[in-house]
């Protein structure tokens, strides 16, 4: 089992979500995130004083998948999230030891 984590542009969230649903993914977790990578921040001006805003707003998505689906779903995310410009984000996977579905107590891949 794997955890796929993606840090993406907020404006691409809907497309990614739709593409994942079309690919048969049954659930995901989304949270707000901010950070910086190669994309630099921007400058804001308040009463003539310029402020550099380094941290850029992003969304983080997290999806649990079975090992055999992992590569295909990463592909779906990358394809849907891409604009080709700096700041599109990153997607990575990590191994997961165990999963429990809280309602039923199911464990392992069946709990995904």
């Amino acid at each position, binding site marked *: 089992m794997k955890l796929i984590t993606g840090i993406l542009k907020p404006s691409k969230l809907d497309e990614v979500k739709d593409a994942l649903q079309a690919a048969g993914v049954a659930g995901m977790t989304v*949270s*707000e995130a901010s950070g910086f990578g190669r994309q630099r921040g921007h400058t804001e*001006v*308040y*009463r003539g*004083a310029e402020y550099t805003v380094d*941290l850029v*707003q992003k969304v983080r998505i997290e999806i649990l998948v079975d090992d055999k689906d992992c590569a295909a779903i990463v592909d779906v995310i990358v394809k849907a999230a891409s604009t080709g410009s700096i700041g599109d984000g990153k997607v990575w996977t990590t191994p997961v030891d165990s999963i429990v579905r809280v309602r039923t107590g199911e464990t392992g891949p069946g709990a995904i």
Partner: protein
Amino acid sequence: MEEIVLNSGDTAWVLASTALVLLMTPGLAFFYGGMVRAKSVLNMMMMSMITIGIVSVLWVIYGFELAFGYKANSPWYGNISFSGLGTMVNDFTNNGGIYPIPVLVFAAFQLMFAIITPALISGAIADRTKFTAWAIFVAIWSTLVYFPVAHWVFAFGNKVGDTVTGAGFLASKGLEDFAGGTAVHINAGAAGLALAIVLGKRVGWRKEAMRPHSLPLVMLGAALLWFGWFGFNAGSALAANGTAGLAFMNTQVAAAAALLGWLLVEKLRNGHATSLGAASGVVAGLVAITPACAFVAPWAAVLIGLSAGAICALAVSVKYRIGIDDSLDVVAVHLVGGIWGSLCVGLFGSKAVNSLGVDGIFYGGGTSLLAKQALGVGVVLAYSFVATLIIGFIIEKTIGFRVTKDAEVEGIDLSEHAESAYEMTSSSHGGLN
């Protein structure tokens, strides 16, 4: 002698204006509150709210008498006595002439000016002021600075025949300040400068971003201030007449022109016209037209507003050069705007638009009015600045004026009021600081 009877139209307008002017102080709370960081918005708003509480009570105890009494026959203060106000229900307002509105209505109207003036100061010392120290400051400053200065400028005395008793010394010298360019705005602006010096800079000033946390709140505040300012300026006619109409129109066009003036400077200097600039420009224009609103023609009000917007937009950068953390630009907007507007009366003042006024330089009146305006500007500025420095240092040396560094960094809303304005997620907290 003709018997004076209550004029219900005039009374109704001044009553409505009174409510409009009160609304300006909560409006100011929004205007200032949106400009501070999310961790200190409640404290910023509370500084205005506590001022409403304290000054209203002082007004009934002695404030109105100290500002507008005439029995002491002093050019410096009204009368040191209990105001009470209970005996004034059936008396007519007598301020250099008898107005057919009750004294009590005049007292309520003037109370709202006494409230907003100290509240304006609070923007200079955002994020770091001990709340009890602020409350004590408001009481002392109102007593020693606002009430006497209101007497100097706004008290035209008790006129019986040709004898006038108890007029304020600037009013007697012919200062033309219709609604408080000196007594309210220069007074508050100079005091703000003094307190910013007494309290010192905020932790991290100029090193970390101190962005306004909610520009929509600032816009809401500017809207309420603009709306209330019609009562402030047009209500100062103390009558529902042509003078009120002139003040009303001038208030509108000066604010509108100042909005354009500020945005023009921003567009040329920074490349963007900002919403904070629009809100600030409106307030700068309203400040500048305040002394002039019933003494100049509307075309002159446009020029006063346009120039005030541009001048104040340029003035906001000065604090960085002189290293004084006047956090929300009370000096650049209220002191600079108040000075500019008060001096403009000496340029654009016209007897043709107001028979009680005097012609300024552009109407062939020479420099005498400008000299009177400059005297009023200088006296109020100097007195307010020095008196506030002294009051401020005494408070600083006795009970302390600032919260601890830890409390300031953690957020003054939490340390002073045990509240927080918003539920913060860690990500938004990082962004909003």
